[in-house]
């Protein structure tokens, strides 16, 4: 499978973890440390799915999401955050799923597979 995923996450260790885990699951993975970097990568590459943190410096997840959707309406987006409190809003932002950060990598991988139909 050659589905491409972009992980946007300002916490370097988490970024690396997710990239490792998703690569281990067989995906082609890129990372960005903030929204601005994510948009730059988005202009150069084609992604099937984005995993997006909400709280990030430079450009936060919600703004990044809006800009991404201007480019590519069909990209799948998973909001991934430490906060439970935005849970009611993610659909209105145009995201496809909402995950609260946890150590269960299985949950993350399963959600990615579900959205990408693999």
């Amino acid at each position, binding site marked *: 499978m050659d589905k491409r995923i972009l992980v946007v996450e300002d*916490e370097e260790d988490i970024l690396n973890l997710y990239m*490792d885990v998703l690569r281990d699951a067989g995906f082609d993975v890129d990372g960005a440390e903030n929204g601005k970097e994510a948009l730059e990568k988005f202009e150069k590459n084609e992604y099937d799915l984005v995993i997006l943190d909400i709280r990030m410096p430079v450009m936060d997840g919600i703004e990044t999401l809006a800009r991404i959707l201007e480019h590519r309406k069909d990209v799948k987006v998973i909001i991934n955050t*430490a906060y439970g409190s935005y849970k009611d809003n993610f659909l209105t932002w145009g995201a496809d799923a909402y995950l609260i950060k946890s*150590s269960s*990598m*299985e949950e993350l991988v399963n959600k990615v597979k579900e959205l990408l139909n693999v």
Partner: protein
Amino acid sequence: MDIEFEKLWRISRELHLSLAPDEALCKILTALTAGEGLAFNRAFLYENKGGVLALRMKIGAETEEEAYKVWEEISKKPHGLEDLLKSCEEKTFDLEPSRIVEIPMDNVPDGFFENGPVKIEKPEELPDVFKRVIDYLPAAIVPLRGENHLLGIIIVDNKFNKDPITEIDIRTLELYAALASNVIERTILFQKLQKKQDELEKAYRELQEYHKRVLKLEKFAAVGEIASTFTHELRTPITIMGGYAELLYRSKDLPPVLLPKVETILRTAKRMETIIKNLSDYIKSPEPEIRKLKAKEFLDYLSSLLDIETKRKNIELKLYVEDDIEFHGDPSLLEHAFLNILRNSIEALKDGGVVQVECRLDNGNVLFMFKDNGPGIPPEMLKNLYIPFHTTKRQGLGLGLAITKKIILLHNGRIEIESQQGKGTTVKVYLPQRGGDKNG
């Protein structure tokens, strides 16, 4: 000393000892009818109740026969005037409703009460309005005047021994009326004072309660703030730790000898996550989604959730539920609360035992009683049961009962814990039958 004056002085001294209205009125009438007092045969006291004079109390026999009997008895065992008056302190006074007679003040001739006691000897002198209440003449009608209004009137007569009412009697009554009015006004003032004092005491108690609640809330708020930062800051490192452990655990390259060690890291991370989740739940204060629940169904369901734990520990979970009890509550919150209670009991029972759950109606509440025959809770622990972060367990954050209590409070219910060391613990949860929410 003049005899009349000495009498009045002795009566006055006794009357001024009374602050309770009924007792004071009883003394006023007793002194009027006592042989050593003013020695009238009968005395009636009418109270001014906003434009109506209502019979409040009377002393004196109903019939001539009764009157002579009473006088004979009194003469056999002579009482001093003071003893007679003091007997009012133990009496209770209730006029039967049929005997409550009222005189409308509108129908009393103008100025009738202005000039002190009035002696009436002939029927034609008696204003119509009094004809219903005065059945014997001569009688004296004595107004009791307060500072700026009429407190009431006293009517006296000598129906049984037929003594006349003399001019001296009238002058004595005038003096006595001033004394009696003074005593009555004092009791009214005293009652007002007492009412104010009761109100003040009540307000003070409420203030104290409120103060306690505020202190408690402040404590909770402080705990909440700390806990909220704490949970958020910890979530990320735990995610990283647990995430990598999981990645390693599933890796084909991991040497088998390291597998149990990685597994331990993974399990520990999960445990930390559970702690964080419990803490978040506690801070969140959820809005309960109230539904109608059947007690039997609900408790059967909880019992099924605990099947594995109880079997493993050889514990018998007995349910005693009255049929058809329904109550209102949020099923998922109450499940959390009740499981906390039940798991505490199960944990307490080291070598098997019985956990008993009883459910019945109790004064408009649904009472859930959770009883175990475990070792009980040490007394020094009992008072700290609901305090967050207070625990004796090796594992756990000390939030279980704090969360449980919060859930019960969200349902407008209450929780009580009784425990006897060596005998066991009983937890009682009362939930209002009608439900804790506005929608019923």
